[in-house]
């Protein structure tokens, strides 16, 4: 058998260019397949980790997925705000332990600005119930003070004491600046791998203050209220975009949800984050399946290429196989020789694919984590990935049997002198 192995190796080396390219195509296909799978899992994990400990999300009546997207992930915009009074009412419900108000609508160089209060730093949880931590500084106390998410500070190179201005709206286009009321960075949060990293946090009062001289999304012509004079005005918030709610007892969640959804004075919506996430996944599942489907097809193309290359080589190797027959190789040796070749190329391709994926996670991982909050951690292979790899290996081995069986049958009929 070792003689056969050596022959298989040298024979493969003799055809190293075609086999090498085939191996590479299988490797790339495997990288794609595992990459898609890993991004899918990473996206789910990162979404699921973005909010924890929150029992309900409160917002204006819209679709649950949309409320989840803009309140937690800061994706898309709110269609409507909710009244401060309604929010206060909900807060006073006996089952409610804490609430985190969220006012959205402004941005700083593309990063969303969150108007909130101390409850954010006290009650917000992510991952497995981890609280936010300040890497530097302190929570905001004054009106024109801001706390930056880790990624905002890192990417824009901000440090404590820096002065920044906010823009109206969410674009990076500076269409409408709140340039007259600059904020001072007083705190920078430790990285969390969630949308918090990409947020600029200010107080609810600050949101009111910068919009004092605004109306309908534009500065009021002829009216300008200087920063030092804002204290003279009533800065208590009038509206809110959303709120995260924590309950004293989770068992009350449906009762509170019913209470909010049936709130008589204003159309409100309360969603369970987990339920909304599930709904989101149902929407995304189609895209995921399409991506997985495409990757599977790419793997199939790679394996078909392998079979084609081995089949094509059979013609030129016919005499070679007859020579092996004459020196004592049986048809089963011929079968083993070719199956070995196909199997080895498949396995080597998978190995190389895994290596490429590791390399990719290592080089592009930090970028993906920073930009998209996807953590493609350089982790071990998961069970789901093992199943995919196993399926690829089995398919590869089964596909390799095709040329092997053909060669086996040919070895029987050709005998020692193939007719060419």
């Amino acid at each position, binding site marked *: 058998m070792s003689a056969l192995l050596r022959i298989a190796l040298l024979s493969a080396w*003799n055809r190293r260019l075609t086999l090498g390219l085939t191996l590479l195509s299988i490797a790339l296909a495997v990288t794609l397949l595992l990459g898609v799978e890993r991004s899918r899992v990473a996206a789910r994990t990162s979404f699921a980790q973005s909010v924890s400990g929150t029992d309900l999300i409160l917002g204006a009546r819209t679709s649950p997925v949309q409320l989840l997207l803009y309140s937690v992930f800061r994706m898309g915009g709110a269609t409507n705000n909710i009244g401060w009074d309604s929010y206060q009412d909900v807060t006073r419900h006996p089952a409610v332990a804490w609430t985190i108000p969220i006012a959205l609508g402004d941005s700083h160089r593309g990063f969303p600005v969150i108007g909130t209060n101390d409850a954010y730093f006290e009650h917000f949880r992510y991952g497995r119930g981890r609280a936010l931590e300040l890497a530097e500084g302190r929570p905001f106390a004054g009106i024109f003070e801001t706390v930056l998410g880790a990624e905002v500070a890192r990417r824009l190179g901000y440090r404590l004491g820096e002065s920044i201005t906010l823009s109206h709206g969410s674009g990076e286009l500076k269409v409408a600046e709140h340039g007259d009321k600059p904020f001072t960075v007083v705190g920078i949060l430790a990285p969390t791998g969630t949308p918090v990293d990409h947020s600029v946090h200010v107080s609810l009062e600050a949101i009111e203050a910068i919009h004092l001289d605004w109306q309908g999304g534009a500065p009021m012509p002829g009216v300008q209220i200087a920063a030092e004079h804002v204290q003279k005005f009533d800065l208590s918030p009038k509206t809110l975009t959303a709120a995260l709610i924590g309950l004293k007892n989770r068992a009350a969640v449906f009762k509170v949800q019913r209470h909010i959804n049936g709130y008589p004075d204003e159309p409100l919506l309360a969603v369970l984050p987990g339920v909304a996430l599930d709904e989101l996944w149902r929407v995304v599942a189609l895209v995921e399946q399409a991506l997985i489907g495409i990757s599977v097809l790419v793997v199939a193309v790679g394996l078909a290429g392998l079979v084609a290359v081995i089949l094509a080589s059979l013609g030129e190797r016919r005499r070679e196989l007859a*020579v*092996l*027959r*004459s*020196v*004592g190789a*049986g048809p089963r040796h011929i079968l083993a020789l070719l199956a070995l070749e196909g199997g080895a190329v498949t396995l080597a391709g998978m190995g190389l694919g895994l290596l490429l994926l590791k390399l990719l996670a290592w080089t592009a991982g930090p970028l993906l984590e920073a930009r998209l909050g996807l953590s493609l951690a350089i982790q071990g292979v998961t069970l789901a990935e093992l199943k995919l790899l196993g399926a690829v290996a089995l398919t590869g081995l089964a596909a390799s049997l095709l040329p092997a069986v053909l060669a086996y049958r040919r070895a029987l009929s050709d*005998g020692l002198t193939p007719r060419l």
Partner: protein
Amino acid sequence: MPALAIHLQELRFRWQAGAPLCLDIPGLEVPAGERVFLHGPSGSGKSTLLGLLGGVHLPEAGTVRVLDQDLGRLSGSRRDHFRVDHIGFIFQQFNLIPYLPVLDNVLLPCRFSRRRREEARRTGGSEQAEARRLLEALGLEGRLLERPANQLSVGQQQRVAAARALIGRPELIIADEPTSALDADRQDDFLDLLLHECAAQAATLLFVSHDHRLAPHFTRELSLAALNRAAQS
């Protein structure tokens, strides 16, 4: 040593059921130690006969005995073993595995057959030494032996094939037109070397060719067309 190297009795073979008979040989006896010239023009069933002698094909009727062994009584894998243990083959051309070095090509039978391996060790000290000795006797030596087989000339390749057939002293050497790819001068040289080595090893030689001019080198001349009733009609 058995008295008969090859013994065919009432041998019949066809490629597929319903196809016309390809071989129909009432009898053939080749005593051990003979050097037989078998004249076989193309289409006379030559390749098929070689396949039967090598145990690659089995007859429809009759028996094929090689060295007193009825090949029909052996299983497929036993026939594969028997073939490499007792028979050395030399073909018309493309005898060698192109990407294997010359020495590895010669050693192939030793890789598949323990008997040939041990015999080569016994006569040459080691398989490699025996392979080098045979190659040298056939006029091949030096750095040539490390080269891939496809870098050799056709004449050199045929001599490598002869060394491979001879290594480990198989009792029967079957050569199928081994000289047809060589020019006339080289044919005689090659034949002399082959006959000499076969005699040295006391091997039976079955030499198949359509070229009558070579017949005088042999102890006996047979015509496959005369033997094979299927080819006569």
